[in-house]
C-alpha cells in the first residue's frame, strides 16, 4: 500500500466517527426525495405561470397608457429612455420561457455575442435599441449590428431549443446551471449538431450571460492558474495595451481545469467594463463611466471532458455559485 493510500485509509478511519444522523439521512430512498422534488417543481411551474400573467398584464397596461397618451409614452419606451424599457425586455424574456417557445417560433430578438475582451455582449430587443433589427428564425445565424456573423454566434444549422429541451439534452444538459444570477431570465438556446455545441443564454436588462458547452474536450486547458499574468484582468492596468503578445490568445480565452477553478479565479476574470467600451460597439462613443456589474469570460474543463465557456456580466459570487451548480 502506497503512502497516499495509507493516508486515505486514515481518512476512511476518521469517517468511522461520522454522526449517526448523517448516516441515517443518507438511507433515504428515491421515492421520498422524488416526491419532494416533484412538489417543488409543481410550485415552481405554477409560480412561473403567474409570473407570465403578471408580465403580460404589465405589458398590457404599458401599451394602454402609451395609446392613451397618443403614442408619447411608447415613443419614450422605444428610445430606451425610461426604466420601463428594461422591464419590458425582462418580461418578454420571462414570458418566452414560461410559454415554452417552440422550435421555429418567430422571434423578434436580435442577439449579439462577442468576446468580452473584444467589446462585451449586447442584447437588443425589438425597437428599444439603436442596433439595426435583424429578424431571426431557427435557420438564421445570429448576426451583429452590420448583419455579419459575429464571434460566438451559432451556425445556421443550429436547432433552436426551449430551456427545458436544453436541460433535457443528454449529458450536456446536466451542465446547464441550476443557479442563475438574480434577475436573469432564460433567453434562448441552440443545439449545433455539426460542432456538438450547446448554446444557452440568459438576459437581465442589457446584461447577458452566455454559456457554450461541448463534450469530449479533454486537453482544452490552456492556463496555469499559478501564473496570473496569463489570465488575471487585474494584473494589468490596461489589458488591451499591456498583455504580452505571447499571452494574448490565452488571455482573451482562458480555459481552466475544474480542479484549479475557484471563486478567486472568477474574480480575476470579472471586471468592471468601462461604459464607452460597450457603447462604442453600438456606434455611440459618448460616456466613459464604469458599468455597475462586472463582466468577463472564461472556460472550464470539467473532469468528464465537458468544456463550458462563460461570457457575460454578473457579481463574481453569483457567477461562482452558478458554476458550482453545473453538472449536478
Amino acid at each position: 500500500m502506497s503512502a497516499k493510500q495509507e493516508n486515505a485509509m486514515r481518512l476512511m478511519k476518521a469517517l468511522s466517527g461520522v454522526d449517526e444522523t448523517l448516516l441515517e439521512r443518507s438511507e433515504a430512498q428515491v421515492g421520498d426525495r422524488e416526491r419532494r422534488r416533484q412538489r417543488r417543481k409543481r410550485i415552481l411551474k405554477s409560480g412561473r405561470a403567474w409570473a407570465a400573467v403578471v408580465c403580460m398584464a404589465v405589458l398590457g397596461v404599458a401599451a394602454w397608457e402609451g395609446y392613451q397618451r397618443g403614442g408619447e409614452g411608447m415613443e419614450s419606451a422605444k428610445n430606451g429612455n425610461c426604466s420601463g424599457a428594461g422591464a419590458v425586455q425582462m418580461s418578454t424574456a420571462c414570458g418566452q420561457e414560461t410559454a415554452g417557445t417552440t422550435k421555429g417560433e418567430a422571434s423578434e430578438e436580435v442577439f449579439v455575442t462577442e468576446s468580452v475582451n473584444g467589446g462585451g455582449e449586447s442584447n437588443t430587443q425589438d425597437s428599444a435599441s439603436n442596433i439595426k433589427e435583424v429578424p431571426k428564425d431557427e435557420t438564421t445565424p445570429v448576426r451583429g449590428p452590420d448583419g455579419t456573423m459575429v464571434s460566438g454566434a451559432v451556425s445556421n444549422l443550429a436547432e433552436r431549443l426551449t430551456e427545458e429541451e436544453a436541460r433535457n439534452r443528454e449529458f450536456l444538459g446536466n451542465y446547464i446551471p441550476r443557479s442563475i444570477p438574480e434577475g436573469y431570465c432564460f433567453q434562448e438556446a441552440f443545439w449545433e449538431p455539426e460542432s456538438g455545441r450547446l448554446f444557452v443564454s440568459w438576459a437581465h436588462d442589457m446584461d447577458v450571460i452566455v454559456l457554450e458547452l461541448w463534450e469530449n474536450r479533454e486537453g482544452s486547458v490552456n492556463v496555469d492558474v499559478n501564473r496570473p499574468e496569463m489570465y488575471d484582468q487585474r494584473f494589468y492596468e490596461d489589458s488591451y495595451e499591456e498583455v504580452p503578445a505571447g499571452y494574448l490568445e490565452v488571455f482573451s480565452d482562458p480555459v481552466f481545469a475544474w480542479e484549479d477553478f475557484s471563486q478567486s479565479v472568477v474574480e480575476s476574470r470579472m471586471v468592471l467594463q468601462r461604459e464607452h467600451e460597450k457603447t462604442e460597439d453600438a456606434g455611440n462613443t459618448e460616456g466613459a463611466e464604469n458599468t455597475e456589474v462586472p463582466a468577463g469570460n472564461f472556460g472550464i474543463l470539467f473532469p468528464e471532458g465537458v468544456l463550458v465557456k462563460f461570457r457575460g456580466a454578473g457579481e463574481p459570487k453569483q457567477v461562482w455559485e452558478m458554476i458550482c451548480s453545473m453538472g449536478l
Partner: protein
Amino acid sequence: MKRGSGEMLLALDELTECVPARCSTEEAVEEAELERLINAFLHTLPERDCNVFLRRYWYVEEYGEIAKRYGIKLNTVKTSLFRTRAKLRRYLEKEGVVL
C-alpha cells in the same frame, strides 16, 4: 453498520485526492481531531452531496448503486464526488491537516 469490501481499494484510491501536501503545518493532527474535522466538514455540505459522499466512502457503494438509490444520473454521482473530494482537500489544507 457494514462497510463494503470489494470496492475498498478503488475507494481508497479516490480518497488519495483529498490528501493535502505535507508542508502546511509542522504538527500532525491526531485522529480524533481529524474525525471531528471531517464531521464538521460533512455538516457544511449540501444534503445530497453529503449523502452521496457517505454512500461511497462509508458504505463503499458503487456509483451505479448510489445513482439508483437517489434517482440521479451516474455522471451526477461522479461529479458530486469529485467536487466533494476537492472541497475536502481544500478544507483539510485550510485546517492545517498534514497526513
